[in-house]
């Protein structure tokens, strides 16, 4: 740690052995993004502050946690995965990450291994005006079960900044990957993740996403390619727009093999003057696939906006694709009903929003489900 600013996160770049060595303010902020600084009930941890890797470790045999650069140096075969799911030429942001030194994490579960506890990764933005660039590679090898929580967050004093995160997921035959991402950004931060996942036969990819804090701009449209027979993907998203946040999120799934299934469930709540675009695009390329898209939105301010854009694209016959989208304000009779049970108007509204956001995150252990619930409820200020 630099002596010039021992307490501040900006100049902290030395490696640490445990997340408990982090400064208190960083521990506090990252814990709000689902990171457990005590590392209790976690099978491994990764911590990146700005562009510095502070920690990459695992406590479980058969599971690897490395920073991407080290992993690329260690494994020559990784070039077959690096920039193979995401196209580096996709846009200016992917290009920017390509041109930078590789940062981010490499997490891999070896064949047949099941993570005892989730692994956790924190991507922390601690310097004013910085564009954090991250490239993550996650591989769940055949028959393994991998569980990761990623918390992306920012130091409380940051007024502006950017996060560009490339994530490439590979779920091999019969493997299962549950990836839970919590975003806790700030009003001046622009966030542009670019994620693509490949799922092989019988594999399952579950992506849970939560964003409850204001952000300047969030643009997130991960894609999944269901390549092998019987593979499936589930996307669950909970998004809360506050202040002047512009949130453009969604998921796109290409169902390319028979017997594949996709489910995309989103809940969006728009407060203040926020704008939320909730997208979803399911593409059925072969027969005998099943895909469902669900988006529900609550608009809680006259100046807020939710624009749901569900798209179903059937390129074959004999496939089952459906969507439902419902956007509106809270029904007054529901508020009155709760008031007739003794709640004030504010309490009733809050109870309804809390209920609305209660999405059962499939694949999450009960304890983690409770942690996530706590994180979402903390942000309910009404």
């Amino acid at each position, binding site marked *: 740690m630099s002596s010039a600013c021992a307490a501040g996160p900006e100049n902290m770049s030395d490696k640490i052995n445990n997340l408990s060595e982090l400064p208190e303010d960083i521990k506090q902020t990252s814990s709000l993004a689902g990171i457990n600084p005590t590392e209790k009930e976690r099978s491994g941890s990764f911590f990146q502050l700005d562009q510095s890797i502070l920690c990459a470790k695992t406590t479980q045999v058969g599971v690897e946690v490395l920073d991407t650069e080290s992993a690329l140096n260690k494994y020559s075969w990784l070039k077959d995965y690096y920039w193979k799911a995401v196209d580096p030429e996709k846009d200016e942001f992917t290009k920017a990450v390509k041109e930078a030194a590789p940062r981010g994490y490499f997490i891999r579960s070896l064949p047949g291994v099941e993570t005892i506890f989730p692994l956790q990764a924190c991507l922390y933005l601690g310097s004013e005006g910085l564009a954090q660039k991250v490239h993550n590679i996650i591989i769940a090898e055949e028959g393994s079960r991998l569980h990761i929580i990623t918390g992306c967050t920012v130091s409380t004093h940051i007024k502006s900044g950017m996060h560009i995160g490339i994530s490439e997921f590979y779920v091999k035959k019969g493997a299962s990957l549950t990836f839970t991402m919590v975003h806790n950004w700030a009003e001046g931060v622009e966030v542009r993740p670019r994620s693509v996942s490949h799922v092989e036969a019988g594999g399952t990819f579950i992506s849970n996403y939560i964003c409850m804090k204001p952000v300047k701009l969030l643009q997130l449209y991960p894609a999944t390619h269901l390549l092998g027979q019987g593979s499936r993907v589930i996307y669950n998203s909970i998004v809360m727009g506050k202040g002047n946040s512009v949130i453009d999120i969604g998921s796109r799934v290409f169902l390319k093999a028979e017997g594949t299934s996709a489910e995309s469930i989103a809940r969006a709540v728009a407060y203040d003057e926020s704008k939320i675009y909730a997208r979803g695009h399911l593409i059925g390329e072969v027969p005998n696939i099943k895909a469902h898209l669900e988006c529900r939105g609550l608009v809680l301010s006259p100046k807020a906006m939710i624009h749901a854009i569900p798209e179903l694209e059937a390129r074959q016959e004999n496939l089952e694709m459906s969507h439902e989208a419902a956007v509106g304000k809270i*029904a*007054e*009779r*529901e508020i*009155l*009903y*709760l*008031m*007739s*049970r*003794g*709640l*004030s*108007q504010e309490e009733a509204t809050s*109870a*309804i929003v*809390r*209920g*609305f*956001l*209660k999405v059962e995150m499939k694949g999450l252990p009960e304890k983690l489900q409770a942690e996530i619930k706590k994180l979402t409820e903390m942000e309910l200020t009404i």
Partner: protein
Amino acid sequence: MELLKIENLQLELGGKPILKGLDFLVRAGERVVLFGPNGAGKSSLLFAILGFPGYEPKSGRIFFKSKDITALSVNERVKLGIGMAFQNPPSLRGIKLEEMLKICRRDISPEEIEKASKDMKMGEFLSREVNLGFSGGEAKRAELLQILTQRPELALFDEPDSGVDLENVEMIGKQIDSFLEHNTGIVITHQGYILNFVRATRACVLYEGAIICSGNPKEILEDIREKGYEQCVRCRARKHER
């Protein structure tokens, strides 16, 4: 003791007069059954007592336990001791029945929840979202379970027997009756079958915006069945009792 006193209540809905100077008095311990033809304003009267927006009186006053509650909000009235089992309650996505019971009475113990829900045959519904996918009878039982949990001094039951099979009417009726042994209630019913189980102490007839008749529940119900509501208008014999 006068528990609820309504003076000269005038209520309009969408510009149409519904209650036209209604006077109504309910004493503590009374179990009043409220009759009236469709559209007479029975439910509107209960909504006005509970203070629902849109049901604010044009004039008149409502007193509960001698306190003027005319300007109070719904939850303020509920805190004073008024509760209501709705005829058509909304469903609440994401809120489980068990959570709702905890809202109804914050200090309720898990044992009490278990017992109360078992008594109402609602045990398996505790983990379900309130009224979501409930049948008519299940929704009525859920309403009653909430009211029994809430324990209001004055309970308003808006057609607890509508859309309910006979077996469930008996069960609901007996539960209401048992509850009203120690509390006060107003029950709206059309069919009157529930009165076989709810021992009402007084019946009132709401007709054309006013209480026009008050008296013995069984006699009044018989009169209505035999002669219809028109007869109540002509019959002034019991009017002084209201």
